[in-house]
Structure formats: C-alpha cells, structure tokens
C-alpha cells in the first residue's frame, strides 16, 4: 500500500548523486535532465533574443556588428528548435508516458539515456562554436547561415571556415538522439501498456506522443539526409548543391522543408497533449470528442507531410505547384480547428477552476487561435508573396512557439511539477508569472506583425529610418523586458517551491489519469502493483464507482 507521506531522507554523498544522474536509465530522471537542459538553453536563447531586440529597437543602430547579429539569429533559431523545444517536450513525454500508461519505464531505458546524451552533446558542440576561432567577444565562429542554412550560402565558397560545420554536426548528433527517442516512444506506447489499456483507452497524451514519435521518424531523417549531402559537398568536394556543376539549391530547400514543416507539428502536438490533459481536469469534465481528437491528431500528422513548399512560394514553382500547396496547407487547418472546438466544448458546461495550469491553457487557446489564423493568411500564396520572409512571418511563428508552445509548456510545468517534486508551485507567483509574461508576449509579438506588413524583411541587422518601422520595433523590444521578468518569476517560483512549496500528495488536482495514482514523486518502479484499467479515466472510475466511465465509452 503506497502512502502519501514523503519517503525517509537517505543521506548520499554528492558524488553518488551525480553518478546516479549521469548513469541513470530511469525515464523520470532522464525526463528531468531533458527539461533542465532545455531550460538552461531557453535562458541562453532568450539572451540572444534580447541582444537582437536591443539592436533592432531603433534604426541604424550600432550596438551589434552585422556579423555578430547574423550569428545570433542563426543560433537563436537553431537552439530554440533543437535544444529547447525538442528536449523539453521529449522530457515531459519521457517522464509522463510510462506513468500514464501504467508501465514501469520506457521500452528501451538504455537507448533512452543514449538519446538524451546525444542531444545534450549536440547542443554543447553547437555552442562550442562561440568559443572557437575569433574568440567569444567576436562571437567566435558560430554559424551565421540562418537556422535553415540555405544552399549555396553554406557552400565552402560562401561559408569559409567551420562555422557551418558546427551547425551540421551538432544537428546530426541531436537528430540521432531524436530518432532514438522517437523509437522509444513508439515501442513504449505500443508494447508496454498496462492490462486493459487498449489504444482507445489511452490518455490523449499517449496518443499524441505516439503520433509525434511517428512524425519524428519521417521528419528528422530528411534533415539528416540533407545534412549528410551538405557534408559531402563541404568535405568531399561533392556537388549536391553546387550550381556550378549543375546542382540545384532549390533541392536543399525542398529537403529542408520536408523536414522543417512537419517539425513544427512535432513541436505542437505534445503541447496539444498537455492542453488535452489539463483542460478536462480544470473544467471537471471528460474530454469532448476523444475519438475525433485522436483522428484529428493522426490526420494532422499525415497531412503535415504534404505542405512543406508553402515555405517556398517565392522560389518560382509553377502556378499549379503553388496552388497545390495552398490547398494542403489550408486542409491541415481543419483538424487543427476541430481540436480547438473540442477543447472549447470540454470547457462548455463545466466548472472551470482558474488555477495557474488552466490560465496558461486559456492563454494558449487565445494565442494559438490567432497564430493559426495568421497562418491561414500566409497559406494564401499571393498573401505570402508579400508577407513571406518578412517580420509578419517572424511574428506568426513566434505566436505559435511562444504564445502556443511555451504557454502550453508553462501549463505543463504548473500541473506536473507537484508530481515530479512532491511540492506545489506557488499560485500567487504563478499568476504574476502569467500576467507579466502575457503583457510582454503581446507587446512584442502583436506589434511585430506591423513592420512585416510595412515591408520589413527578416534577418536584417539594421534598417533605414523613414519606413515607418521604428516605433513598432521599439514596442517589440520593450515587450522583451516583460518576458524576461516573467521568466525570472517562473524560475524563482520553481527554485523556491522545490524547497519550500506546499506538500502535494499523490493527487493535488483531483485528476483522473494513472500518474496521479502513485506518490509524488513516484518511486523508482512507478507502481507497486501494475494497474489494470477499464476506461479512459481510471481514477474517475475509482472516485465515482456509481457512475464509471466504462459505462459510457
């Protein structure tokens, strides 16, 4: 019988603790390492963003040289996608999936550790570039080719030295880690569910990590392939992207975006998972339309593989090519919209509790809606011919990534931090975090749409006065300060609550999935007895034996 009390503190020497963490194959520890790693890089990428916002706050600024600025936006984008978003989502998935399906660990614990360390070393390799060559004050030889590294800018002729190679090699490493992680998620979800948990009884988080895993398998690999080709060009004088030998640089674009577009769905789908777990609990209602949510997620996975060239509308594809991608891109909005309706319907008729996880979810709904709509606008090729590669696009995708993904991640932190540490995060600080960050987010990214509409392209280290861009850029830069403040409150909340937070107990939120059926934090083996389930909400069935879910499913 598992009790709610904290386990007795056992004294271990610091060396033992460090070794335990470095050598662990336990999914919970690995999950936490992914998350902490990502948070460190979140801070670093935030600093990179702040520096850029200072430079862009007024016209013809000289705070940063063009070379340093170009390295900053390259590193900011690359870090954000590969060393913040992917690891943090893999971290939450790693921690939660086995618990939520009633398993004791992932299918391949050692592969799990290997995948984490590959990703971790990839990030370290990328950042080593800042210290190599010119030295840190000259920002080293960090890559400066943009996070999508278009050919032939990456050819030896236009990228002398090794900066591009840091980009290529570090992402190859991280890619191996991602594929290993995806293999693990799929094998775990398909092969390790507890008795009674058929696929149609799995929590939506498990479904979404399954789809995400499948997507990673066919998404990261094209990038790996393209990067191998780039290495052949750079190291072995190959001609994959060498126009002088008849090669095509458009082919790099195709391969990159065949990776790059589904990749953003890889990032958002686990966030859909968090929202799908949190909104029902805080609305006190079952998820509305579970089968539709599953179907929508799976179809998003498939359709997202066919939209990539909407990043290439200006490249000179024939009209029917452009039109095809307009169609597929708009089609993928349909299942996405359906999910928003399902979340709304879950809240509808419920009893909404505005704890911090829930207010971050509401922020997500509002912002993801707007982000999706600016996405629809950009999906229209004629619109994109004007707005593509401008700050409108930058505003759009930051709306998704910060307003959507990061808000969902904050919600997940507040919701599952008690499970991971045994202590509640402070609600007052949480609300401060939310409102301060919200103000900063909207100042920065609402304003950012306007310069794009007024003709400001992206990736420019400075701009001329008189185009009408200065005020909006200044507003965006001011917003960044609020976001920093919000993050500082968040970090303080986590550190303070880890030591002094209220004890959480097994199930502080009165929730319904299996992770709340064990202690906070769970013991190494997760469950003393492997659970057996009969419905999608096993704990609802226990708490409401007169009205269990399996009567209605």
């Amino acid at each position, binding site marked *: 019988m598992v009790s709610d009390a904290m386990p007795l503190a056992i004294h271990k020497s610091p060396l033992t603790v460090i070794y335990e963490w470095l050598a662990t194959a336990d999914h919970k520890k690995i999950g936490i390492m992914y998350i902490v790693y990502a948070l460190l890089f979140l801070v670093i990428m935030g600093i990179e963003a702040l520096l850029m916002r200072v430079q862009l706050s007024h016209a013809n600024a000289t705070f940063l040289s063009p070379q340093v600025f170009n390295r900053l936006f390259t590193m900011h984008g690359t870090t954000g996608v590969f060393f913040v978003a992917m690891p943090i989502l893999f971290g939450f998935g790693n921690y939660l999936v086995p618990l939520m399906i009633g398993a004791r660990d992932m299918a391949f614990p050692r592969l799990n550790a290997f995948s984490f360390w590959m990703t971790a070393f990839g990030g370290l390799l990328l950042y080593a570039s800042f210290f190599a060559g010119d030295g840190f004050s000259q920002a080293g030889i960090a890559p400066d080719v943009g996070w999508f590294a278009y050919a032939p800018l990456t050819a030896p002729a236009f990228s002398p030295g090794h900066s591009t190679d840091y980009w290529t090699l570090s992402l190859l490493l991280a890619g191996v880690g991602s594929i290993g992680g995806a293999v693990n998620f799929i094998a775990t979800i398909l092969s390790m569910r507890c008795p009674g948990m058929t696929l149609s009884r799995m929590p939506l988080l498990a479904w979404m990590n399954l789809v995400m895993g499948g997507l990673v398998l066919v998404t990261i690999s094209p990038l790996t392939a393209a990067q191998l080709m780039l290495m052949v060009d750079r190291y072995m004088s190959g001609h994959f992207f060498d126009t002088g030998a008849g090669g095509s640089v458009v082919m790099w674009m195709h391969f990159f975006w065949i990776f790059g577009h589904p990749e953003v769905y890889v990032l958002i789908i686990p966030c859909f998972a968090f929202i799908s777990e949190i909104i029902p609990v805080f609305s006190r209602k079952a998820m509305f339309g*579970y089968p539709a949510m599953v179907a929508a997620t799976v179809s998003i996975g498939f359709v997202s593989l066919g939209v990539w060239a909407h990043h290439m509308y200006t490249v000179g594809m024939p009209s029917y090519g452009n*039109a095809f991608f*307009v169609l597929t891109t*708009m089609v993928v909005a349909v299942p996405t919209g359906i999910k928003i309706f399902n979340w*709304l319907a879950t809240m509808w008729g419920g*009893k909404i509790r505005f704890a911090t996880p829930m207010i971050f979810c509401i922020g997500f709904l509002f912002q993801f809606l707007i982000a999706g709509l600016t996405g629809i606008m950009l999906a*229209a090729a004629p619109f994109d011919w004007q707005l*593509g590669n401008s700050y409108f696009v930058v505003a759009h995708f930051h709306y998704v990534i910060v307003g959507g993904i990061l808000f969902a991640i904050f919600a997940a932190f507040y919701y599952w931090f008690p499970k991971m540490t045994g202590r509640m995060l402070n609600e007052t600080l949480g609300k401060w975090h939310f409102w301060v960050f919200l103000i900063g987010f909207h100042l920065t990214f609402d304003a950012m749409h306007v310069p794009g509409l007024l003709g400001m392209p992206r*990736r420019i280290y400075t701009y001329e006065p008189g185009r009408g861009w200065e005020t909006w850029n200044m507003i965006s830069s001011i917003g960044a300060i609020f976001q920093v403040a919000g993050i500082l409150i968040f970090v303080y909340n986590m550190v303070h609550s880890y030591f002094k937070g209220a004890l959480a107990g097994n199930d502080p939120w009165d929730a319904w999935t299996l992770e709340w059926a064990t202690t906070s934090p769970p013991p190494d083996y997760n469950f003393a007895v492997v659970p057996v389930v009969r419905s999608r909400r096993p704990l609802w069935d226990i708490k409401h034996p007169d009205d269990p879910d399996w009567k209605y499913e």
Partner: protein
Amino acid sequence: MLEVTGVIFAVVFSLLVYAVIKFRQRKNDDDFEPPQVYGSHQMELAWTVLPVLIVVVMFLSNAQVIHRVQDARRPEGAVDVTAVAHQFWWEYRYPQYGLVTSNELHVPVSDPRNPTPTFLALQSGDVDHSFWVPRLAGKTDLIPNHPNSMWIDPQEPGLYLGQCAQYCGTQHAKMLLRVYAQSRADFDQWVHEQQQPAVSDPSVAEGRALFVAKACFVCHSVRGTPAVGQIGPDLTHVMSRDTLASGAVTNTPENLRAWIRNPEAFKPGSRMPVTELTDKELDQITAYLLTLR
C-alpha cells in the same frame, strides 16, 4: 482573406470568453461534478463540414489569383529587364535598349488602357536573394541556376523602396532596392542618357589612369573605357544615381570618397576590398568618378 479570418476569430474568441465567464466555478459551488458529456455527433460533423467548405472556397479564389499573376501574358509594350542579384548589389540589364546599370531601377509608368509593365527576368550571380518592393508586387527569389521571372505594373510615378528579402550573407540588410517609375518621356530620356558611353573629361585624366592602375577596372565597368569588370556595379553613369552601395548611403562627393577609402565603414562585410591609395590618389579617383554623370 482578412474578412474570413476576422470572422472566425470573432466567433471563436467570443465563445471562449463566454465559456470562461459562464462556466467558471462559483464560490458557493456544491462540489458535485458537472454532467459529463463525451461528444456530440451532430456538432462534430457541423464543425468539420463548415471549415472544409471554407477551405474549398478560399483555395479556389487563391488558385485564381495565383494563375492570374504567374501565368499573365506579356503585353506588346512591356519593358524587359534582367535583374542579376549579387552579394550585396543589384545589376540591371535592359536588352531592348542595350544598356546596363546598377542598384537603381528605372521603369516607365504603365497606363491601364495601354499597359507597359516591366517584366523582370531574375537571376543570381552567387547565393539566393529576393526582389521585394512591397508597393509594386510580391517578392520573387533570385536563385543561382534557377531563373525566375516576375512583372511590375506601376501606375503612379514615384520612387518605390524595397530591399533584398532572402538572407544572403553579412550585408543582406543593406542590399536596398530603389525603383523609379517615370513618365514615358522621362523614362526615354533616362534610357538615352544611360546608353551614352562614359563622359570623357580631360581634366580628370589622372583619375582615369589610376582607375586602371589601381585595378578598379578588374571589378567595375565604365563603358567607352578599357574597364569592363563584371564583378562589381557598372559605374558608367554612377553620378546619375541618388545613392551608393545599393542604397546604403546618399551619393555625395564626401560619401563617395569615404566609400572608396574604406567600404567597411558604411557596409561592413561588403565585397569591395580596401584599395591602398594615398590621399592625393583618392582625390583624383573621386574627381574622375564625379564626372561620370
């Protein structure tokens, strides 16, 4: 497009606000769970079918616009320009008039009753670039080994500003575009002036000689002289332009001199190397270039 997205936003946002207010847990709550609703076939069908219809309509209208723009027929009076993008300047060739210029594009204003748009053939001499003058047209990329084309149809005379819109290296930010839409008479006058070979003023003979001796001619052309370099902008009529370094600075004698002395000061990372010149030589070369109207 904006109307559709606006309406969708208004509807969904209102529903969200309503739900958050109406269904919040009240202070005097009875602690019972609300009725559990697992789904509704009618609702789910409705909110699937309606978006699909919206998508179909939007796709069809998009396809029409795409076709009208990309497959537009080229009218008789159109002007042809081949734009070649370089790191970090623009080369313009007018095959119909046999002239080459750089960085400032002149086109005739087009009359809707008798259109004379400008059709641009887009090529690149090195990496990917993009031609974006927002008030004239959407952008189209210039990609090596992948020629593109686009057309502009300005109906109001004036100066239209833009800049390169595909990251192309260190000075991507200062690869500015200036398009001058002129009346037919002004445009013809400009063409005539640009077609002339370079002004040959004997008082700047030393500067002209230095232009060759100091290897400027390796990169730059001045028509009517031995300078036929293709690597940098054509300078035959450099003083007819309002700006230097592809819009980076205004074209004044001081700026011209400072640019030649040290391109890095205006445009760090520009491809023009620093040439070793004494002050006197710099004065002479500047004086020579100042005659190239």
